[in-house]
């Protein structure tokens, strides 16, 4: 991996730690390209949810927070299954087991970075579950 990219990653981790020390108050009203991520009880932009957009829409039938809680729970299951499925595929498509169609081999290489990301996310899910159980 290039040194530039490693330095960038190290900077991010360092600044993530710094930013966590900078403030302890909850976020509020922030929305960027990840706008959807901040629609939560504590990071709810009143300028967004307080507008007439939601009042006169399909969203009015339930709270967006409930929808997101359900969505996150379901997506955690999908993500875990996808991560496990990819790991199984990577194992089965290992050239060490014998010859394989070239397309399947190429696909194996294409899915490697996706697998790496999903496995990282899977471990975060597990870690946060364990943490939430310990924290009660």
């Amino acid at each position, binding site marked *: *991996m290039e040194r530039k990219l490693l330095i960038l990653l190290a900077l991010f981790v360092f600044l993530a730690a710094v930013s966590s020390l900078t403030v302890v108050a909850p976020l509020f009203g922030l929305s960027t390209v990840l706008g959807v991520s901040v629609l939560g009880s504590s990071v709810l932009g009143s300028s967004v949810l307080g507008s007439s957009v939601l009042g006169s829409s399909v969203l009015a039938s339930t709270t967006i927070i409930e929808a997101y809680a359900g969505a996150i729970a379901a*997506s955690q299951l*999908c993500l875990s299954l996808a991560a496990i499925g990819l790991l199984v595929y990577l194992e089965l498509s290992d050239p060490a087991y014998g010859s394989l169609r070239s397309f399947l081999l190429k696909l194996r290489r294409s899915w490697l970075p996706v697998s790496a990301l999903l496995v990282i996310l899977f471990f975060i899910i597990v870690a946060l579950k364990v943490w939430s159980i310990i924290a009660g």
Partner: protein
Amino acid sequence: MTIVQLSDLVKNLTYSTLAVFLAFATVYVPLLSSLGYGYELHVVSAVVFASLGVGVTLGLLRRRVGGSRHVYVSASSQGVYVGKSGEKARPVEVIEYGTGRMYAFLAVLVAVVVAEELLLNSVYAVYGLVLAILGLLTIPIFALVLGKRNDWFRTAVEAVALVFATRVVLSPFPSGFLSLSLFLPSIYTLILVGVVVYLAYRGVSARNVRISLGRYPLRLQLGVGLGIGAVLGSIEYFVLRPQPILQDVSLLQMLAYTVIVMMVFVGVTEEFLFRGLLQASLERAMPAWQAIGVTSMIFGLMHIGWFNPLEVLLAYGAGVVFGYLASVTDSLIAPITAHGFGNVVLYLIALYPL
């Protein structure tokens, strides 16, 4: 063989951006009056915007090259040389345009992004997240098939899969985690990890995704970035009127947090993904103005979460500006500065509403 001049890039970008802006503005007013300011307006306007964007950017392309193979030449170092009589010849990179099938697939990808974002920002958020996971998994397969003859197109399509990854990385975090100030840095660090892992596996060098000092002096790039950021941030404030990013904190804390999060996490990560990976790859498969247009369209559509059609349009326009800066300077310094500083200005104005 065509040599693309800077003036062509500016002309095509200006025409296409103005066309999308004017067409959308014309459609938006009757939509607003007929549908009212509700979710329905949000859905219809997103579909209209995406259709217009695809029509203008990729539609014009079909007229110009008709899906056939053309050759594009730009300054690089791949062994082909061009130069005017009497001048020292300069090395150029020969790039083949993609086929019509590739452009059709790009249009489909834009449609999927629209569907995923609209679902994600509704009570059907679960389908949005599942669609994002499916996109992350299946797009590499299509990239493999369609990118057989153009490896950079394959990279660009896989970059769209990474755009979906920006939504998938939300999944591990329970809703309570949202209240922590570490949330945004965590999300953006994960996105960066995904991009870096991808680049490492694919062997794409940092230089190819514009992590470089660029063609122009650093001071000039920073100055232009700050100026454009100040203007865009101010305009965006009038469109969004956001709340301050933090409440009940000191000004120093507010400044430190905003600058770190907006300049570094938001600015660097988003520009790295959109202008660095996606746009730079597309520019090797299609003319620069179309690559900028497609990237900006996807960038704009990823702002649907604001529930404001004008913000989507503004983000598209900002994306075009950032894309132009990246393309001309061959560096991410100016777009990162403009993007990050624009967001800082946005939230600084929010502190002292006009």
